[in-house]
């Protein structure tokens, strides 16, 4: 540890840029939005103070309930797949048995390098009903089935979104999991191997417990990101969330209410309430993780 003299101040100076920027572009807007959420502000006219009425209306709003349920469904579907998939992939990519590691890693990271505009385009092209690759070549030509309406069938909305999310973000999970695996001392594996444990047993008894902090970190990140998710459902389904609002997520609804209906007060209340939901879910995950 450093312990010079001016340096009592040094760390504060070093971290000050973050806090200055945060005060101006983070804390102030948050406070401002908090105030706005108590106002009946629709369109141009800033209305009167209405206390918590926006919040009360919110929990009775069928769209809001729908969006939260959709998002939770999405989280439950895509979360385990991306986190679990990321972990399994990381273990496989770390395996002594695998060759071309660099190549494989690059491939899995590749979609992260692709912008959302691009990835959404690629997916709509791929899943397009008459002339998408999946529909025409795989489903029609190879399996001789009717084309599937990935993008407009309500029951497929969230699963289709999940496909896109896995494709685009599994690289993120992989990064976190690989970093986690690196932190496990190799002598533990060695010991396990000498004890005659199978790779699967090693995974369950050595890898998994030691990876808990990373899985948790990833889970929290995924939760936050899912509730903030906007671009993907927007590109696939539009602001209405597609047929029967099956693709309406919370991020989409906040955007729609704020920037399509221009109900800033209501939108701010929604953003605030979602912030609380996200925070609560994150805490819950931490709790559950610590119990193990």
């Amino acid at each position, binding site marked *: 540890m450093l312990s010079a003299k001016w340096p009592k101040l040094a760390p504060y100076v070093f971290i000050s840029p973050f806090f200055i920027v945060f005060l101006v572009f983070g804390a102030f807007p948050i406070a401002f939005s908090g105030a706005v959420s108590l106002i009946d502000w629709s369109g*141009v006219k800033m209305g009167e103070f209405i206390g918590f009425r926006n919040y009360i209306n919110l929990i009775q709003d069928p769209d809001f309930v729908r969006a939260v349920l959709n998002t939770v469904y999405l989280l439950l579907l895509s979360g385990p797949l991306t986190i679990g998939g990321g972990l399994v992939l990381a273990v496989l990519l770390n395996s002594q048995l695998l060759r071309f590691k660099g190549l494989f890693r690059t491939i899995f990271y590749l979609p992260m390098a692709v912008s959302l505009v691009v990835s959404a385009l690629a997916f709509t092209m791929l899943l397009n009903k008459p002339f998408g690759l999946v529909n025409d070549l795989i489903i029609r030509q190879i399996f001789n089935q009717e084309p599937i309406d990935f993008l407009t069938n309500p029951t497929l909305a969230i699963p289709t979104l999940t496909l896109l999310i896995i494709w685009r973000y599994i690289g993120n999970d992989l990064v976190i999991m690989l970093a986690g695996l690196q932190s496990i001392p190799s002598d533990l594996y060695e010991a396990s191997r000498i004890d005659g444990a199978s790779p699967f047993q090693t995974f369950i008894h050595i890898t998994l417990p030691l990876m808990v902090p990373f899985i948790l970190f990833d889970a929290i990140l995924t939760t936050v990101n899912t509730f903030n998710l906007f671009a993907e459902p927007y590109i696939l389904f539009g602001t209405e969330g597609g047929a029967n609002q099956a693709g309406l997520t919370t991020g989409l609804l906040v955007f729609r209410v704020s920037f399509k209906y221009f109900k800033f007060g209501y939108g701010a209340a929604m953003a605030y309430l979602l912030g609380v939901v996200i925070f609560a879910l994150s805490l819950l995950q931490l709790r559950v993780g610590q119990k193990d």
Partner: protein
Amino acid sequence: MKPQKNARLSRRDFLRLSAGAAAATLLASHNLEGAFAQESTPIPTPTPIPGLSGEIVLWGWKGGIEHFQAAIPEFQKLYPNVTVRIEEMSYEDTHTNVLAAINTGVGVPDATNFDVNHLGEFAEGLMDLTEKLQPYLHEFIPVSVKLATYKGKILGVPQDSQPVGMFYRSDLFEQYGLDAEQITTYADLVQAGKQVAEASKGEVKMLAMDVGSKICMGDPHLIIDLLLVQNGLGGTYFNREDDKVVVDTPEAIEAMEVLKQLSDPDICFLGMSDDAAIAAYGADKILATVAPAWFPLAMTGNLPQLSGKWRMMRLPAIKPGGLRASYQIPSVTAIPKDAPNPDAAWEFLRIAQVSLEGQLRFTEATGGVMPTWKRAVETLVEKPIEYFGGQKIYALYAAIAEEVPDVWFGRGWPEARSIMRKHTETVIRREKSPEEACKAAAEEMRLKLNKG
């Protein structure tokens, strides 16, 4: 993960952002010179305001700003000290930016385009143009002025006109032994659709609708809107007198009943994506579609191979002898209250849009979007349109525009439409009866929009 906007265009974008690229045009040779030579009722030429200077900033999307660009030379002859900057944004961003600007008072443009269904939302921040437009009102198509009026004030300069008719495939009508003349009500249309379905064993259908919210030529929300207007509800969801929600009135329920019949899977492809719909049109599987005045451009742009096969007719009526005209959302150009240079902005608009020349430039630049200046429309009505087998579709559109009753958009309309769409879907999926859906929609509108 950062939020993003739609990379895919919405239906409106796609149709409105037509533009100078002239990817599609209805008018093979629209001659401006000839139009100017026409006899014209004199409009008092206003004296230029002395001493105007500075800059004016105009916002709009492609397809709505080319005529601004073209008007700059004429404007600067009168006002050499005023520079004009045109900021092009996408259709959706324009609305978001307008609202942000007039809300915050920051970066406010001197004039901006927007779709008139946002009028109620923007009204507080817009300049009252009633007095300035007074001398020119007789030159505009009446319905376009009505739409630009909110609570008795004219808040925008009408840009395009969007009467709604119906397109049908004359070749296929013939093949299936149908006569467009005989289809005068929606019941007739449904009957004809059944005939087609039977003859083609369900392969070919009269209509297509996309139950989802993607771009489709038959988005159900578009259809319910125009049915409501047709059935006498000029404010679609609201009442003019007291701004009350009217979507649970008998007229609205009746309109919804028609939509239910039209969305019968026997006569209508449901849940067809745009690409699928375009492919189906190309494969001669769809016979007809409702068609606002922008729609011919979408047709020529996407389905050039069908040239000569389409014809246009009026919408069927809801009841025998009923109204066979409806109207869709057009755009206006407005001057915000906080505009830095409102006088120069008005002078610019006067030249660019409140004039025959300006509106002709608009139609020219968009490849044939209908203008709102009567005499500009007159230059179009006699033109036979090749894509429609030489039919003078502008004449029909112009006639429809004249018959459209009082129409307007009230406060909260964009959200009301979203609510309406949601409940309309329940009818199309046959989960609710038209009456139940209308009542549920009305209830939700009242709750969310604080309306009676």
